[in-house]
C-alpha cells in the first residue's frame, strides 16, 4: 500500500513537469502577450514594451525563461511576479502571500508602535525558522524577533481560512459534501422506488440540476433569498455561515444531480445482482441489504467521478466566485488567460494539475478500500 502510494506520487512528478513544459510552450504560441495592450486597451509603444519585456526576462529565449521559472519555483516555491498586476506576486494572488509576515508585523506594532511601519524583515520569515531579523528600511538591523509556536499556528490558521486557494477549496469542499450528502441518498431512493412517482420526482429534480447553468441558479437564488426574502447575504465568504448556503447550492447542484443519476444507475444494476438475492435469502432486513450489501458496490462508479470533480471544484469556480464576490482563485483561471499573464497562467494550471493528481490518487486508494478485487501491486 505504502509502496503503491509512493510509486504513484513519483510517477506523477514527470507528469507534472510535462504539464509545465506544455503549458509554458502553449502560452508562447498563443498570439498576443502580457504587454501587447495596456490596461486601457490602447497599444503600448514598442520601446516601452521592450523595456517591460526585458524587466521580466521575456526577451530571453523560451527555454531559458522556462529554466529560470522552474528554478525559482522548485528552489524557492516562487511563482514569480504577476505580469499584469504590477507589484503583486502570483504567490500573493494564489496563496495570499506570507501570513507569518502579517503575524510578526502585529508583534512589531505592539512593540514599537508607529515606528514599526518603517521596519521590515531582512529575509522573508518562514514557519521553519526560529527567529527573523528585523531591519529598518535602510537596512540597519533593529532586533531579532523570535517565532513562537503560537505564531506558526496563527499563520497556518490564517492561511487555511484566508488564502484565496483555500477559500476556493472551502467553497468546493462544502459543495462536494452537499452534492454527496444529497446526491447519493437521492440516487438510492429513486433506484429502490424505480418507476414510482418518487423516482420520477427525484430524476426530474436531477435533470433540472444538470440542465440549469450555475450562474443562472446563483442569480435566481440571490434574487429570491437575498433580495425578496432577505434571509441570506448576497455576497461574501468566511464571515457567517449564511454566506455558505447559496454558493454551495449554486456550485453543488450540478454535481449533486450527476451523482444522483450515477448512483441510481449503478444501484439499479447492483440491486439485481445475485449476491443481493443471497443477502436477502439470509434473512437480512431490506435496510441492511441496501446499506451494507448494495451501497458499497454501487459507490464504485461514484468514486471514479469524484476525483476529477473534486479537483475541478476545489480549485475554484469562476462563475460562483464572480456571482457571490468570493475572493478565491477561480477568477484567475479565466482572467490569467485573457490577460496573457504568463506567470499566473502557470500558477493556476499547476494548482489544478496537482489537485487532479492528488485527488485521482485518493480515488485509487479509496478503490482499494471499497473493492478488494483491485490490487495495489
Amino acid at each position, binding site marked *: 500500500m505504502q509502496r503503491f502510494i509512493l510509486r504513484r506520487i513519483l510517477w506523477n512528478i514527470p507528469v507534472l513537469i510535462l504539464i509545465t513544459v506544455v503549458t509554458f510552450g502553449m502560452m508562447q504560441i498563443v498570439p498576443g502577450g502580457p504587454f501587447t495592450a495596456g490596461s486601457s486597451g490602447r497599444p503600448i509603444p514598442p520601446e516601452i514594451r521592450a523595456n517591460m519585456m526585458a524587466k521580466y526576462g521575456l526577451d530571453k529565449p523560451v527555454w531559458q525563461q522556462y529554466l529560470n521559472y522552474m528554478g525559482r519555483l522548485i528552489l524557492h516555491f516562487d511563482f514569480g511576479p504577476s505580469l499584469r498586476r504590477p507589484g503583486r506576486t502570483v504567490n500573493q494572488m494564489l496563496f495570499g502571500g506570507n501570513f507569518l509576515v502579517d503575524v510578526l508585523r502585529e508583534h512589531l506594532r505592539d512593540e514599537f508602535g508607529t515606528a514599526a511601519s518603517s521596519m521590515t524583515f531582512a529575509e522573508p520569515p518562514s514557519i521553519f525558522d526560529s527567529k527573523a531579523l528585523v531591519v529598518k528600511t535602510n537596512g540597519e538591523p533593529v532586533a531579532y524577533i523570535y517565532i513562537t509556536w503560537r505564531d506558526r499556528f496563527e499563520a497556518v490558521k490564517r492561511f487555511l481560512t484566508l488564502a484565496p486557494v483555500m477559500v476556493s477549496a472551502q467553497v468546493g469542499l462544502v459543495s462536494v459534501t452537499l452534492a454527496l450528502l444529497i446526491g447519493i441518498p437521492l440516487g438510492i431512493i429513486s433506484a429502490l422506488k424505480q418507476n414510482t412517482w418518487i423516482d420520477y420526482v427525484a430524476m426530474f429534480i436531477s435533470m433540472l440540476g444538470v440542465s440549469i447553468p450555475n450562474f443562472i441558479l446563483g442569480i435566481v437564488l440571490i434574487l429570491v433569498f437575498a433580495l425578496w426574502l432577505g434571509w441570506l447575504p448576497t455576497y461574501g465568504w468566511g464571515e457567517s455561515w449564511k454566506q455558505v448556503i447559496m454558493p454551495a447550492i449554486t456550485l453543488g447542484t450540478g454535481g449533486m444531480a450527476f451523482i444522483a443519476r450515477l448512483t441510481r444507475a449503478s444501484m439499479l444494476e447492483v440491486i439485481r445482482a445475485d*449476491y443481493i*438475492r*443471497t443477502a436477502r*435469502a*439470509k*434473512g437480512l432486513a*431490506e435496510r441492511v441489504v441496501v446499506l451494507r450489501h448494495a451501497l458499497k458496490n454501487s459507490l464504485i462508479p461514484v468514486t471514479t467521478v469524484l476525483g476529477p470533480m473534486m479537483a475541478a471544484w476545489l480549485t475554484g469556480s469562476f462563475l460562483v466566485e464572480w456571482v457571490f464576490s468570493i475572493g478565491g482563485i477561480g477568477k484567475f483561471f479565466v482572467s490569467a488567460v485573457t490577460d496573457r499573464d504568463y506567470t499566473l497562467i502557470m500558477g493556476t494550471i499547476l494548482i489544478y494539475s496537482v489537485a487532479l493528481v492528488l485527488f485521482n490518487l485518493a480515488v485509487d486508494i479509496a478503490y482499494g478500500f471499497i473493492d478488494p*478485487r483491485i490490487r495495489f501491486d
Partner: protein
Amino acid sequence: MGTLMEIKNLTVRFYTDDGVVHAVNGISYSMDEGDTLGVVGESGCGKSVHALSIMRLIPSPPGRIEDGEIWFNGRDLLKVSESEMHKVRGAEIAMVFQDPMTSLNPVYTVGFQIMEALKLHQGMDDHQARERAAELLTMVGIPEARQRLDDYPHQFSGGMRQRAMIAMALSCNPKLLIADEPTTALDVTIQAQIVELVKRLQEQLGMAVMWITHDLGVVAGLAKKVNVMYAGYIVERGNVWDIYKRPRHPYTQGLLGSLPRLDEPPGTKLISIPGLPPDLIDLPPGCPFAARCVYAIDKCLEAMPPLEEADGADQHLVACWRWEYIAGREK
C-alpha cells in the same frame, strides 16, 4: 415423519410490458421432514420461480404471488409479515443459488458473509460466529478454513465458492435447504463433489433438501421424490424410482428418452421432443404440452388435466388425459 411444507395452489405471475407471464400455475404438493425432492424441468418451466416464491424473494414488481398457500412449520408463509419472513429466511429455509461466481458479495470476506447469518439468527457475538464459520467451512471441505475466512470471494475457486454458499446456507441449521441449480455453473467433477457434499450433510444434519435442476442424472442419484414441471405446472410427481422406471407423462418420457444411457448399444439415437415450450404469456387453455405431444387428442387442447394418481402406485401422480392409453400401449 411429519409434513414439513405443504404448498397449495401456488400461482405466480409476472406483469411485464409484453404481457402477463404465467410462471407458476396453481401447483400443489407437500414435503416431509428430512425428505429429498428433485424438481426437474427445462429453463423457464417455473421451477426457480416457485422456489423463490417459497422464500418470498421473487422480484416484485413485476412478479406477484397471485394465489395459494405455503404451509411451513404451522403457518402460511404467504400470510406472515415481512419481519416474520426475515426470521424464516436463512434460519428455517436456506437457499443455495445457481452461479457461485456472482452469488457472493465481492466486497466482503467470505467469513463476514457466513458470520452475518449466524449473528442475525443465532445471536452470536463476533468471536462465536467466527468459530462457527470456521467449523462450517471445514464441514463443507475447505482446507485451512480459519485462514480462508478472511479471503474475499475472488480468491476462491468456483467449487469453493459454492461450498462456501452451502456453508452459509447451513449455518443456522435450516429445516429446508433449497438448492437452485447449484451445480449448473460448475464443471462435472466439481458437480459430483457438490452433490456428494449435500448428500453427506443431509445425512449428518437431517434437513430436507429441494434440489432444483434440469439434470435428471443428478436427481436420480440424490432425490427420493421428483416433481416434473412444465410451463408452470407439475405434470408428474412421484418416487424417483417410479418416475425413472415408469414415466407416465409423455413429457417425462421425452426428457428421459433424450438422455444418453450407458446400457444401450452404441449408435442408439437419442429421442428429442419436437417443438418448443409454450409462450408463458400466451398459454393455451388445455395441456401446455399438447402441441408437442404425439398422443394429443382434442380434449388435451381444451382442458388442463388434473394431477391424479397413476398406476395406483404410491404417490405417483400424473397430469395427463392419456396416461392410461400411453401406459397400455407400452405393454
